[in-house]
């Protein structure tokens, strides 16, 4: 492996993904360096969720090569759990564990996977809850929190594993409009602290502010990937232009 791999956290090479007869990903190649912030956008069904779900192997890619932090993703189980503990994921529907309090939600993985002690895990959990600005909700159950609060807890939960890269799968799409900014603010802070992240989103304001690279996907292919200024001001492809005109009008 060449030394450039050390700064490449994620590498996808010619990745295809089939769901039965349907091809969700077509010949995807993408490299994400340490500290980079990548925003992936595109219409529904373009494969953007599938793309990031292949990175932590929630979906298995059909062909091609995916390397995460130097580990190639194959079907060997040991690899997968180890890789996943380095990759944080935030879901559109939060997926907080309903039967655990907020702080227990955060403590579960560090205790089981990193074998942290109860007090270590608790301290870390409180630290990240403060980071996402809701430490007072620690002993509440997820069902008692608003959507925006739940998503921030979800982010804190992922951060407790000290991941090298954070994946966000449409983190604000299920939120009522007034709660979107509280979550985006947290994500912006995270970006400014240097976290490597891949964010699938429709929030173009966020992309403009924070992204190093904006990737446009359509029908399973990467149509265009450019830094935000180029992407928004001088999109190369017609499909990109069409997409931008549709989502930027209102």
């Amino acid at each position, binding site marked *: 492996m060449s030394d450039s791999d050390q700064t490449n956290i994620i590498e996808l090479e010619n990745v295809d993904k089939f769901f039965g007869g349907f091809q969700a990903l077509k010949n995807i190649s993408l490299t994400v360096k340490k500290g980079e912030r990548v925003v992936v956008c595109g219409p529904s069904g373009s494969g953007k969720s599938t793309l990031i779900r292949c990175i*932590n192997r*929630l979906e298995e890619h059909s062909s091609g090569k995916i390397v995460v932090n130097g580990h190639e993703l194959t079907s060997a189980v040991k690899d997968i*759990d*180890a890789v*996943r*503990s*380095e*990759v*944080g*994921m935030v*879901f559109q*529907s939060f*997926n*907080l*564990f*309903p*039967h655990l*309090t907020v702080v227990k939600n955060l403590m*579960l*993985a560090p205790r*089981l*996977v990193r074998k942290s002690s109860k007090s270590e895990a608790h301290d870390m959990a409180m630290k990240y809850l403060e980071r996402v600005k809701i430490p007072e909700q620690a002993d509440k*159950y*997820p*069902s*008692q*929190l*608003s*959507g925006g609060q*739940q998503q921030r807890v*979800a982010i804190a*939960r*992922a951060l407790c*594993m000290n991941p090298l890269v954070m994946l966000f799968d449409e983190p604000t799409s299920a939120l009522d409009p007034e709660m979107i900014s509280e979550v985006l603010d947290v994500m912006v802070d995270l970006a400014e602290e240097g976290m490597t992240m891949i964010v699938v989103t429709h929030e173009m304001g966020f992309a403009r502010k924070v992204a190093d690279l904006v990737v446009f996907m359509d029908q399973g292919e990467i149509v265009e990937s450019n830094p935000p200024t180029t992407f928004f001001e001088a999109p190369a492809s017609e499909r990109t232009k069409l997409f931008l005109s549709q989502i930027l009008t209102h």
Partner: protein
Amino acid sequence: MSFDFALIGDSIPKILMGIGLTFQLLVLSAVLGLALAIVLLLMRISGRWYLAAPTMVYIYIFRGTPILVQIFIIYYGLPQLEFVRDSIFWPILREAFGCAILALTLNTGAYVSEILRGGVLGVDRGLKEAGAALGLSATHRFIYITSPIAIRLALPAYSNDVISLMKSTALASTITLLDMMGIARTIVAETYAPYEIFISVMVIYLIITWIIQRSFGWMEKRMSRHVRSEA
């Protein structure tokens, strides 16, 4: 035709002497059945066909045949087989009590494993994915995420099954056991007073059912305290 209240007063203590046996049958079968159900569940969801297939056949047979027939096969039928008479289990299988427990356990085990499976299937896929994304192993996910939620989901159906099990214990009276039902039938045979006796024992069974339902209702409330309306 009069209602013989004196007879009722006389018979209830006698019937209640059978309650010990009724509870033994119920509790023992419920506990053993639950253990069996968990084993069957793990085999069923293991993903390995050589574990899942026999389990599915077992469940199919025990849910597809009447429990009375299962009891008769074990109590009347097994002694026909030489290898059963020669086995170490013979002392248990020779006795009506052992046979009843075996039949009830095997039967409830099949039903409960399907109920548990329903609970497991009801756990939101996203929660399992979140666990996976955090790096939790499949075993950890099953123990800490799937199981607590599955148990809560399965509780209503499980409480119904416990009540069914309680009702099935009455069938032990068909193989000579003197549980409440057995005693009741004996008294009726002697006194020709089916209404008084059977209605009395029915009331006792209804009280037991009510107790079981309340207990489970309390358990369900406790387990659901964190699940209010979806946020």
